[in-house]
Each structure stands twice: as structure tokens, then as C-alpha cells.
């Protein structure tokens, strides 16, 4: 299969590879996919709790080149967005940006799922944090 230049670029120079402390209250972690299916994405974002802006994002992906590129691109797009803006990222945006062929659309779906999972993890931590703050009073 021929890969688009953008997929190749992300594969060769993946952006924002790494891990953050998943126990930090300001870090949301999304892990989607399964080893049996041939792709697993871990996407993490760090939110400024005051502004609600995503200040950093990191990923690690087990999967084909398109899966790696989709998650690498997602971390680029996440940085600087608010949590609400991040929720608007659609898998089709990733498909278009990377010119993914039809058989690789699931990679973009997985990246969207990873974003949503990371944000929901962050939100859950925040609400638990608030609840704890309330009971502490």
C-alpha cells in the first residue's frame, strides 16, 4: 500500500511521543483498542484546570503506520484547544488531513475514541476531585 506523505511524516517523526503521570488530577488518559485487533492507542492530555485549555498531549500507539499517524496528529491538534473544542475533533478531519484510504478509516475512529476517552477520564477526575473538596469542608 502506498502511504500519503503526511502519514509517512508522522510515522518517521512522530510528535509528542511519551507518557504522563496518569494519577495526576490534571491528566486525562484514554486507552482504546486491543492487542488482538492489532491496534492499541494510549492518548494523554494535561489540562490547565483554571483555563480548561489542553497544555500538553502525549501518545503511544501499537498499530499500523496510519494508526501511529492518526494519534500523532491528534496530539498536535489537541494542544492549545479547550476541552470542549477538543471534543469537536472528528475522525473525518483526521481522514482528510492524512488522506487515509477506506481500509484505514478505523485508525481515525480509534484516534477520535482515544480523545473522547482521555477527556472523559479527565472530567471524571475533576468531578471526583470536586466532590472530595466538598465533603472535606
Amino acid at each position: 500500500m502506498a502511504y500519503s506523505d503526511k502519514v509517512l511524516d508522522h510515522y518517521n517523526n512522530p510528535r509528542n511521543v511519551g507518557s504522563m503521570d496518569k494519577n495526576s488530577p490534571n491528566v486525562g488518559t484514554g486507552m482504546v483498542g486491543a492487542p488482538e485487533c492489532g491496534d492499541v492507542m494510549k492518548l494523554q492530555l494535561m489540562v490547565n484546570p483554571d483555563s480548561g485549555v489542553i497544555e500538553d498531549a502525549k501518545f503511544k500507539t501499537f498499530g499500523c503506520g496510519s494508526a501511529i499517524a492518526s494519534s500523532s496528529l491528534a496530539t498536535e491538534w489537541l494542544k492549545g484547544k479547550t476541552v470542549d473544542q477538543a471534543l469537536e475533533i472528528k475522525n473525518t478531519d483526521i481522514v482528510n488531513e492524512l488522506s487515509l484510504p477506506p481500509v484505514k478509516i478505523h485508525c481515525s475512529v480509534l484516534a477520535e475514541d482515544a480523545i473522547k476517552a482521555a477527556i472523559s477520564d479527565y472530567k471524571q477526575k475533576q468531578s471526583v476531585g470536586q466532590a472530595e473538596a466538598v465533603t472535606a469542608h
Partner: protein
Amino acid sequence: MKKPVYLDNHATTPMDPRVLEAMLPYFTKMFGNAASRNHSFGWEAEEAVEKARKQIADLIGANPKEIIFTSGATESNNLAIKGVAEMYAEKGNHIITAATEHKAILDTCKKLEKEGCRVTYLPLKADGLIDLDMLREAITDKTILVTIMYANNEIGVIQPVAEIGAICKERGVLFHSDGVQAVGKIPVNVITDKIDLLSITGHKIYGPKGVGALYVRRKGPRVQLTAQMDGGGHERGMRSGTLNVPGIVGLGEACAICQKEMTAESARHRQMRDWLKNKLEAELDETFINGSMEHRLPHNLNMSFAYVEGESLLMGINDIAVSSGSACTSATLEPSYVLKALGVGDDLAHTSIRFGIGRFNTQEELEYTAKRMIEVVRKLRDLSPLYEMAKEGIDLSKVQWAAH
């Protein structure tokens, strides 16, 4: 060293220049139809065909009269299985094969099942070998054919063919073997192996594509086949169609070269393969060999690199041609059914790479391949959440995955 490096010699092989040399005159100067009985053009074509028939027969211990020319092993397999099923329908309708056979066998069997045959697909042991006791138990008085490949195209595992042949002989069942990956690479002998039908193809033994042969035993027992194509009754009535004279000359020459060079070549390939295996194992942790190392073609290596998906690995070593059992690289988007049949989990199947060493590979190419493989596996493991988790001591099999 020329790039890309070709290490996918189970898929196909480059043609040996000596083979091309032998074929060339038969395209232009000696273009006759081997079936033309009344002029010299026909005679010289026929003579060339008969020489090739003998070269092929010699390589597998057969009589030249037992060689039927076909368009390749897909056709040979179809002709052997369908031809037997039709010819021996009165005797029975049961066929035994194995789960790791090539699609040309499995899909032929599936077709026959639709037409009323019963097919037993033997499971494989974890090392890729069939269980001979299971084979014995599977044979019934309705069994007409056992078809088990000589060596597997993905994992290179060599089946205990002589034992299978002996069991079939004892029970009066015909034995067909897909010999595509074995013939010319390791000694194959239809007499000592007690094979009744054997499929061969040109393009896996440094010969041309689109030409193959089927060995059909003539004595003890005399095997009969129902032709699957109607026409002029060529090839003892088993396979009609004007013979592909240049292709056949090429197949014959390819066999003759293999026969002459097999001992030295297989020793060289084994040494190169073992070097590659040892190098990769020394430099990388968590690699797994798929299939028996002991019963394996000398030029095959099939290895899983845990936590690194196969297609992304191929992308990283894009100037080296190998293949992967990963779903992403297959037309069906399923991981390799061969590895599955060995009980290799889908997670490891996705990380498998097949290396096939060939006549024209050099040690320098293998060294380059090992170097690139090590770099790319390390890079992708740094990128792999699974590798990270495994290093943290997490048991991945116990994780609740959000499968999609």
C-alpha cells in the same frame, strides 16, 4: 549492495539467468507446437518438453511419464484434489487435509464440500506439525485422499511426509502433497516418501511463473484423475491445452539446477538463516519463533516481535521486502490463519515477520536487514503502549481492553 533487498522468496523467486538462457530459443527460433507430429518444428519442441519432463522427474525420484504439466501449483492442487474426488467418487467422498494448507488446497476442499464431499481439517500441534495419530483416526472406509503439504509457505515447517505416506499406503488411501516450498530446497522423493500426487511450481525454484507440474503415480497404485478442462487430450488426457514449451523448458532447467546445487545451497541458507535468527534474538527481547525450528526449511525464518505491529514494522524497513502475518497486510484483514492454527494468539500474529532467504541473497544483505530490523523494532517499542505496560509488569492478558 543493491536496494531494496528481496527476502520474500516464499512468495516468489527471481529467475535464475541460466534458466532464462535455456528458455530463450523456444520463444522465437524453436516455437513449434509439441503436439505437431509431422514436422521438425514439432519434434524439436517435443524433444525439449521430454528433456524437461526428465529433469523434473529426476529431482523427485519419479518416472518422466508421471509428470503432467500445468499452469502452476494452484492448478496442480485443483487438478489433484478435484480429479481424485471425481474419479474415485464411487469408492468414497472423504478427504483429509490440514488447517495450515495453502488456499489453493483449502478453497478447493471447501468447494468440494459444497458438492457433497466430506472434508476433515486436521488441527496442528503448536510446532506446526500434524499429529499422526489423529491422521490415523481420521481415516475411514470412505476416505479417498489425504492432502498434506510438504512444507508450509509461511512458517517453513516440514511435515513428516514419509510417515504420512506410509499410513496412507497401509490404509489404501491416496496421498497428495503440495510440494511447492520443499521441492528443489530439500530432498523430496516420491518413492521413499510414498507420495501418489505431488504439486510443483516454477516460480518458487528460480524458474518462470505460470508453469508447474503435477506428479501422478503410474505404478503401485496407478492413480487416475478426471480431467478438469476439456480439450485436445494432452498430458495423458489429464490436462488439455497446447504445452507452454518455453515455460516447461524453464521449469526443467530450474529443477536440474536445484538438483545439482541443493546440498550446498541449503547448507549456505541454513547458516545465513541461523545467523539472522541469532542476531535478532541477541539484540531484541521478547521475540518468538513461530513453528518448529527443528522441522523447518533451511531458508525460512518466521518470528514475532511482541508489542510491534507488523505493518508498521514493514513500513520502517521499507527497503527490505519481507512479509507479515499481520491483519493489516492481508487482503482479508484477518491475521494469518496459519499462525492461528498453531495457537499463536492474534496479538502475536499481528507482530510476525516472515523472512525467506533465496539463491541470490548475500550475507551483507542479511546484516543490513538485521541492523534495520533492530533499529525499527526498538523505535516502535518506544512508541508502543503495550511494551511500556509489559515493562511495568502488567499482565496484558488480564487487561480489560476496549475492543472495537
